[in-house]
Structure formats: structure tokens, C-alpha cells
């Protein structure tokens, strides 16, 4: 069974070590914070000047001056700090974030990322994506394995405009966990009930298969969220 969006977020959260400093992009990445295992201290960075962003504020208790980069009214954890955009991007570009989890339109075999723009007559807008992609110590992608119409998002070469070249280290999808090692894309894990053949068939780039591919250790449900698609 493929993972739900929450399942992908859950799977990623298991891999963030205690003491991580993490930036989470919009979409699936923004769900990761919910699934951080109890006992781990992980500080969430937000581009607009937060280290230690907490969960969304309960309705009626929003602070009008406290949003995260996605525009959500959030809270702060004890030990949080606030700063301006210049310091925030010194943190990002200077290699101080241990991890960033980003969405993707396409990821290439060697870790090129396209996640900011589809071609065509549209208004371009990049936000912090390019800085985060070049700056974080580890860039992980959280994405569905294919588009809604079944096109592979993991490709040999990106056809969409690049965010940054060779920046992605791991890819977490509804079907698999993959890691980029130089020119090779390793299939590390597959979702429960999914076969290697299925993953290969839905991937647009050559995969390298280790001797054994692990099956993800993931519960069906966690804290009220379904992690596996029915």
C-alpha cells in the first residue's frame, strides 16, 4: 500500500536525528513536524525569522504578528528565537540548517531539483527555495512518486526550470525511499505491499538496486492520521 501524504511525512520524521535544525517547505514537508518522535528535540526554522516554530495557534489564539513562511499563524516553542531576514538567510545559505525537507515538481537521478516553476506564461516566484536547496546540509525531497496523471517526478534530467543542481540527498515518496549517491540513485526502501518492479516502472530514471531492498517499517495509523492509503 502506498503511503498517504501523512505517511510520507511520518517516514521522514523518523529519520530526523535529535538536535536537528530543519526547514520544512509547503505541502507534504509542512506535515513532518506533527510526526517527530517523542523525546527528540528538533527545531523548526522558518525563512521569515523563526528558529523554534511550534504548531499552528489554536483558533482564536493567533498572534497577528507571528506567522511562519507559509503564512500560517504559528506558536513558538520554549527556546525559540526571532530575527530578521538577513540573519535567517545567513542561517540558510551559510550551511547551518542540518536538514531541509522540500517539495518537488521533478528530481533528477543526480539530485537536481525543480520545484519552483512550471514553464509557460505564468508569474514567476521563487521565495526561499533556491537558497534552501543550496544551503542546507542535507536536502530531502518529500513528494508523490508520480504526478496526478501518472507522469514520473523522478527523472533522468529535469525538464522543468531548475531550483538547484545536485542538491538532493534523499527522496521520500508514497512508494519508496531513495538516496542520491553521485550519479547513482539508490532504492533504499519500498512501501509495504509495493514491489520493486512497481517502483521501477513508475520511476523515470535508472535505479540502482542494493542486494536487499528494505520494506518500510510504518504503522497504518498514527495519532489519528492514516499513514497508508487504503
Amino acid at each position, binding site marked *: 500500500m502506498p503511503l498517504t501524504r501523512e505517511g510520507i511525512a511520518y517516514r521522514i520524521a523518523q529519520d530526523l536525528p535529535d538536535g536537528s535544525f530543519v526547514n520544512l517547505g509547503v505541502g507534504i514537508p509542512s506535515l513532518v513536524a506533527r510526526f517527530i518522535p517523542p523525546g527528540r528535540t528538533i527545531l523548526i526554522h522558518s525563512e521569515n525569522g523563526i528558529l523554534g516554530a511550534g504548531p499552528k495557534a489554536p483558533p482564536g489564539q493567533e498572534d497577528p*504578528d507571528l506567522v511562519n513562511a507559509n503564512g500560517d499563524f504559528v506558536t513558538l516553542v520554549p527556546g525559540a528565537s526571532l530575527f530578521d531576514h538577513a540573519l535567517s538567510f545567513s542561517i540558510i545559505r551559510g550551511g547551518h540548517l542540518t536538514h531541509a525537507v522540500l517539495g518537488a515538481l521533478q528530481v533528477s537521478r543526480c539530485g537536481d531539483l525543480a520545484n519552483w516553476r512550471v514553464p509557460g506564461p505564468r508569474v514567476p516566484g521563487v*521565495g526561499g527555495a533556491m*537558497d534552501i536547496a543550496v544551503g542546507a546540509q542535507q536536502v530531502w525531497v518529500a513528494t508523490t512518486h508520480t504526478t496526478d496523471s501518472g507522469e514520473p517526478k523522478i527523472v533522468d534530467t529535469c525538464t522543468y526550470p531548475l531550483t538547484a543542481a545536485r542538491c538532493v540527498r534523499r527522496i521520500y515518496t508514497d512508494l519508496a525511499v531513495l538516496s542520491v549517491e553521485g550519479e547513482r540513485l539508490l532504492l533504499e526502501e519500498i512501501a509495504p505491499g509495493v514491489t520493486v518492479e512497481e517502483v521501477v516502472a513508475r520511476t523515470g530514471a535508472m535505479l540502482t538496486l542494493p542486494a536487499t531492498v528494505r520494506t518500510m517499517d510504518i504503522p497504518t495509523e498514527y495519532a489519528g492520521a492514516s499513514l497508508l492509503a487504503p
Partner: protein
Amino acid sequence: MDRVVATCDEAVADIPNGASIMIGGFGPPGIPVNLVRALRRRKLRDLVLIYCGGGTEEDGIGGLIADGAVRKLISSYPTHPGATAVREKYLAGELELEVLPQGTFVERIRAGGAGLGGFYTPTGVGTELAAGKEVRVIDGRPYVFEFPLRADYAFIKAYRADRWGNLVYRRTMRNFNPIMATAARIVIAEVDEIVPVGALSPEEIETPCIFVDRVVEAPRDWVRRAPPDER
């Protein structure tokens, strides 16, 4: 040294057609909406706005663009929900757009305020946002050259000011405000509360008064309602 101006209209009264204006804020926090509204009442033309987002009807920046007052927008993320005026004007060919990675956007403004001639950033290398820009390999890694960015005016939103223009922010109001305050010829701050000189602690002042030319008190409703110890 008293920088206090009575109204937002007075504070923006001298801005000419064609002026370049930085506007702070990200999300709602830190957007100087009352200055923007006063600017909109001026019915100017050919403005160049330097603002991280695209503006909405609500914050007034989208309204300025919809009015046709803006010739060019230098921005990072003008594609958020509500940025309909940018989309319409840009796709109609009536708005010039310069899009920058957000770190490059703020760093160019910082360089302008800090008197630097430019800098090399690793961000954007090999992307269409670096098209036509100089690339230089430094210590084995490629970087894009970026020029400093300055403006005729900056609109800043802060929480408290003293009458000299020392500024304090709360929560995520800072964002671009302290940086833009360094990079414009005339800096105008809209604040919730003006306090006497000496009432702000020297350590808490984030924008020293040397950067600020005009201060207007325009308290937001919720600030007006909430006593200081509950904010």
C-alpha cells in the same frame, strides 16, 4: 532630532512619480499598510516597488498595482494567493517584474545599506534566475554576482518607536524591515506606539534612529485594545 510626523498622508506627501520604494513585511506581519494606503491616495505613476511578495487588495500593495501606479516590481514571491493584480498586470505586459531568490533579495538590500559594491552568492547558479549574470568560481564552487539595491524611499512597519525614530519590533515583524531601513534615502516608519526618548532599552532597539527619517503613529486595532502586558 524629532522625527514624528502627524499622519501617513503627510509622511508620503513628497514622493514623486517614478520613485523607487521599498516596502517591508512578510505575511501580514510587518507590512506598513497605512503608509501604503496613503501612497495609494497620492495616485502616482511609474513607481518601482521593492517588496518580497506580490501584494493583495487587503494590504494595499496589490491595490497600488491594480491602479496602474507601479511600473516595476522587484520581488521574490509575487505568486502567493491573493496576488491577483500582479498576475493580471504582468500577463497583460503592463508590469515589469524582477524576481530574485529571497536570500539574494534581502542580501542585495543589505549590501545597498552597508555601502558594498556587490557580492557573490551560491544561490541560483545554473538556474534561469542567474541568466545573464556573472558567474565566478571561488574556492572551487560557482557563485553568482549580485549588485546592491537601494531605493528613494523605504516604508517600514515597527511595533514601538521613540520620537527620534529608534525602532523595536515584536514576533515576526522584523523580516525585511530592519534591512530596508538601511537602504533608502528617506525612511518612513509606521508604528503602533510612540514612546518617549529613553523609554526603549539600548539593547532592544533593532533599528537605530540614524536610519529613520519620519515616524508616524498608526496603531492597529488589536494593539489599541490589548494592554501592553498582554501583547
